[in-house]
């Protein structure tokens, strides 16, 4: 994949009220609910409920008006059937909806109104979630349902993402002779024709450093912030012992990568329909869905097996917050029928 997926310039969202949850595994962090602007708007209460929605599930779950409609409605559409069935359902729903899009065409024609994908700046309404959108080219708009949440906010997911990689930089404060470093240090490689830096490795913590002649250094591979700092200090100490007046200035963590497993399969096609503004899913190119969360500014790679990779964080709490934000959304896409 091209190296650009983790760069994104989007405006920051509003500040939302946060609240503390029970510290898990000795780590305290703040979780925040996803702001309503970043999720599909709640359906108007006056419209009738979908006939296909399993009523037993509706009764079991508490109604909460503060959160946006969860994706339980998406469950109804998970059973994909081509042809007649969806068109019949869709036509009955079309009466209630304001947008009346044409149904499946055997041949695409120019006179069609632009597809639902053409509305920029607005998160997709769950209209697309309940349409069972598969064979019909224009999934009918939904009928809305009473907003529900799969779990109350205070519960949390119970899963803590594990940090897998930390990238940090530090300034050693002096110019360096890379040839001397490569010659005198163990586990150092330097090939100026290929790359203009010495690549050094240490075993504890298991990390790799790129040391440049300007005195700047990049340290990768550590599993925690302290380990990254310790490793960087070790590299700097080695350089100092080789005769350079090295210091340890401006240590900064540039990127943190975490991963976790939600333990259930996820319907990526459904997720990209309802969160099209944030998601990018191209199965021809990459099997995972790339979700660019706005607040916190984290990029998540979500896979069908339930594994989630979170990256782009500067502090650990951003990863935890991002996961707590995405977990309820993912839970809405778990069942097949």
């Amino acid at each position, binding site marked *: *994949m*091209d190296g*650009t*997926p983790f760069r994104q310039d989007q405006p920051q969202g509003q500040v939302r009220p946060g609240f503390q949850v029970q510290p898990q595994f000795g780590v305290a962090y703040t979780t925040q609910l996803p702001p309503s602007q970043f999720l599909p708007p709640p359906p108007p209460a006056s419209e009738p409920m979908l006939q296909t929605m399993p009523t037993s599930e509706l009764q079991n779950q508490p109604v909460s008006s503060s959160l946006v409609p969860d994706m339980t409605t998406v469950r109804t559409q998970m*059973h994909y059937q*081509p042809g007649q069935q969806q068109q019949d359902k869709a036509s009955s729903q079309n009466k209630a909806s304001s947008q009346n899009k044409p149904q499946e065409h055997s041949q*695409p*024609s*120019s*006179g*069609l109104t632009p*597809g639902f*994908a*053409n509305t*920029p*700046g607005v998160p*997709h309404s769950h209209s697309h979630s309940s349409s069972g959108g*598969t*064979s019909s080219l*224009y999934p009918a708009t939904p009928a809305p349902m009473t907003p529900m949440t799969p779990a109350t906010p205070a519960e949390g997911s119970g899963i803590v993402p*594990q940090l897998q990689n930390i990238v940090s930089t530090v300034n050693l404060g002096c110019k360096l002779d890379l040839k001397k470093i490569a*010659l*005198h*240090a*163990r586990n150092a490689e330097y090939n100026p024709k290929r790359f203009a830096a010495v690549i050094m490795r*240490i075993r504890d*913590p*298991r990390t790799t450093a790129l040391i440049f002649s300007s005195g700047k250094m990049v340290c990768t591979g550590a*599993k*925690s912030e*302290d*380990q990254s*700092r310790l490793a960087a200090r*070790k590299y*700097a*100490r080695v350089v100092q*012992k080789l005769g350079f007046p*090295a*210091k*340890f*200035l401006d240590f900064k963590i540039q990127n943190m990568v975490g991963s976790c497993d939600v333990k259930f*399969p996820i*319907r*990526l*096609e459904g997720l990209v*329909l309802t969160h*099209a503004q944030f998601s990018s*899913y*191209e*199965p*021809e*190119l990459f*099997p*995972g869905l790339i979700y660019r969360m706005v607040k916190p500014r984290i990029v998540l790679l979500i*896979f*069908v*097996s*339930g594994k989630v990779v979170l990256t782009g964080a500067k502090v650990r709490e951003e990863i935890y917050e991002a996961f707590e934000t995405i977990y309820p959304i993912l839970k809405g896409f778990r069942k*097949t*029928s």
Partner: protein
Amino acid sequence: MSAMVCTQCGSQNIQTDPHFCMEQRICTDCGFVLEEGSFQNDPSRVYAPHAAQLTLPLKYRQHNNFHDYVSKARRDGTTRVEEISAMLRVTSDTMLEEAKTLYGRAYDLTALKKTKREKKRVLPGCCVYIVCRQHDWPITLSDMWELLQCIDSVFYSVYKVVLTELNIVITVPDIETVVPSVIKKCDLTFDLDDEQIKTVTKIVCLAKNTWISCGRRYDPIIIAAVFLVWKTADYGKRKTTNITSFCRQNKSGRQVVDMVRSRVHELEGILLKLASDIPWVQTGQINKKNVVCYISDILKYEKTLLDGKYVFTDEDSDLDGKDEERELQDKFLPPSMQNRTATSDIRDTDRTSSDVSVPVSYSTELGENDIPDSEMHKYIKTTKEVMLAEEVMTKAANKTEEEDPCKRKAPSDTHKLHKKKRSDVENTP
């Protein structure tokens, strides 16, 4: 000074006549030329195309339509948009105009200004693809790659830039909508009638419901479904045909053949699971090879089989409702989740995991705390090792020097025999 009287004949009938772009004052009676126009003071000849009176280098603009000037690259790109639309058989003028407008906007993006030529070459294709998807055409990225003969990562990078900068949201087509175009693209040696295409579409939907198609390329799944339907059509003759020979008919690449093979295995596994739930099928009767014969039954009762609600249920089976539901949920899992062992879920217990606390100092000065001198030998070579390393490096450097000059000298020596130097030629008397 304007002469009102002809100096030759004295008449006052003087007229101005533009002669070869030069104005001349001529006496109409005798034809005497009184005055010729001058280029310098003629106000009509002052070039001032707009009020600002800027003067730009001539070679960067056209004289008369300065504001409508379109560069050659932009014109070529627009032509390319038209060509690609024609190749995709976009007959609608609206779509073509939209594609051209989008190309015009994308052309001006700063992110695409200073990129490689191959990215700029791909941009018209991206715009046409975006417009087609906005009109819900069942066209996939792989179709565009094949059409444009470009690398997938290059196309995707340009495509992403256009989407993010121009704030467009595009979704991939559903796999069912793509079935007819993929079948057409495969260029099969045999024809599929409508009923068979419907069956293929139903099998693809089944694959979608049972997590086989999620996160995967569309083509291999569709080809696998076509293979199963083709086998069913004449089971007696075709039951021994393997996938490689089938794909040879489609002229697919080896990578695609491997993917098709694994999809066929997965589909057969799913069909086997579903067929074993059919009440009138005996357990020992079906296996992976003959399960294709039961495809019509499986698809007919697909919903019931997937939900797991049997027509004939015992009363006792309702007791453990929750366990059954959980089992049914686990019945169909994505292939990547199926072979999970318990140990894969345990957190990393390596001592360098993120929860292990590590004592670290925050000062800018480095010292013994970071690496004690007693351990420094692990990180820095001894003087003997350094000397040995230097010897090896100098030997290697010498070796390359010896080899290269020899190689370089040999051809030049032979050339010297044949070539005369100019100095030799000049110096010979």
